[in-house]
């Protein structure tokens, strides 16, 4: 009887050791192996891409439109469309040129984006571009739910008082 109880106690002791080892393994898996990797580079790339793309684009001079800046062409597109470039209105010219630039940059790098130009007083977009893959139109949109980096540029207009064009570059994470 005493021997039986002694054996039972020894088994119980071994069980406690095994339970402690299992707990240690569980915590190691949870907090070390399953720890999410830091996303410094991805976050930096997204933020710098949205900012630098907008700055570079708005500052660029048009090739066959008397060297007018893109920011000026966008505001003309929003206002009276008086500027004519190579037989095209400013809006058509911007759309064509932006498609060409995006093809060699964000589309080539397989970056998901949503680029919009709209008046601050009207939510309807004047210019709108999504990334190439049609599925991305659903996934990458500048709304409150999608994770990404947004950079907004404010372009004042010459004849519309306090109204201005908001040029938004949204890069999805």
């Amino acid at each position, binding site marked *: 009887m005493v021997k039986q109880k002694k054996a039972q106690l020894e088994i119980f002791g*071994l069980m406690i*050791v095994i339970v402690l*080892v299992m707990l*240690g*393994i569980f915590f*190691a898996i949870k907090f*070390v*192996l399953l*720890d999410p*990797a*830091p996303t*410094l*580079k991805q976050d*930096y*790339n997204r933020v*710098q*891409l949205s900012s*630098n*793309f907008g*700055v*570079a*684009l708005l*500052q*660029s*001079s048009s*090739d066959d439109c008397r*060297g007018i*800046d893109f920011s000026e062409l966008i505001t003309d597109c929003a206002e009276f469309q008086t500027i004519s470039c190579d037989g095209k209105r400013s809006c058509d010219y911007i759309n064509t*040129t932006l498609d*060409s*630039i995006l093809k*060699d*940059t964000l589309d080539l*790098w397989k970056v998901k984006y949503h680029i919009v130009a709209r008046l601050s007083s009207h939510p309807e977009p004047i210019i709108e571009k999504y990334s190439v893959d049609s599925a991305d139109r659903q996934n990458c949109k500048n709304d409150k739910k999608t994770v990404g980096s947004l950079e907004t540029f404010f372009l004042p207009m010459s004849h519309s008082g306090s109204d201005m064009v908001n040029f938004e570059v949204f890069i999805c994470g």
Partner: protein
Amino acid sequence: MKKKSQMQFGETIAILFIFFMLLVVGLVFYVKIKTASVGQDISEYKDVRAVELSQTVAFLPEFQCTEMNVVEPSCFDKYKILAMQKVSEANHAYYYRDLGDILIEVQQIYPFGETIVPYNSTPETFTVASQAHIPISLYDVESEKYIFGVLRITTYG
């Protein structure tokens, strides 16, 4: 008596065996976790290094537009970048100290133009660690126009 002592000896051996098995399993597990942790640290260091390099290159004074010694923000001087090709070759050790084994290219996207390589330190045998693309505004002093360009930094592992 003999059997009793043999049984106890057998028990002791069994316990020692289980103990050492547990110890070995624990050590193997610890080594695996440590390896994963070190791998993650190395990956994080490479990412930090890539970000540092991107910032260093993007703000090199050799690339910046200036007017009367005042730096113009968010602007890269095309002719300075062209000149940098020869300067970096002549002073390779100086730039290698800060930049290391990387390839810097500046590509003109709109209007489409040449690709300039202001710095090239590609090792003989390499694996591409990462590539960063930074849209930039290139200023052409001759035509007084801004060109949409891309600064491409290739880091080698």
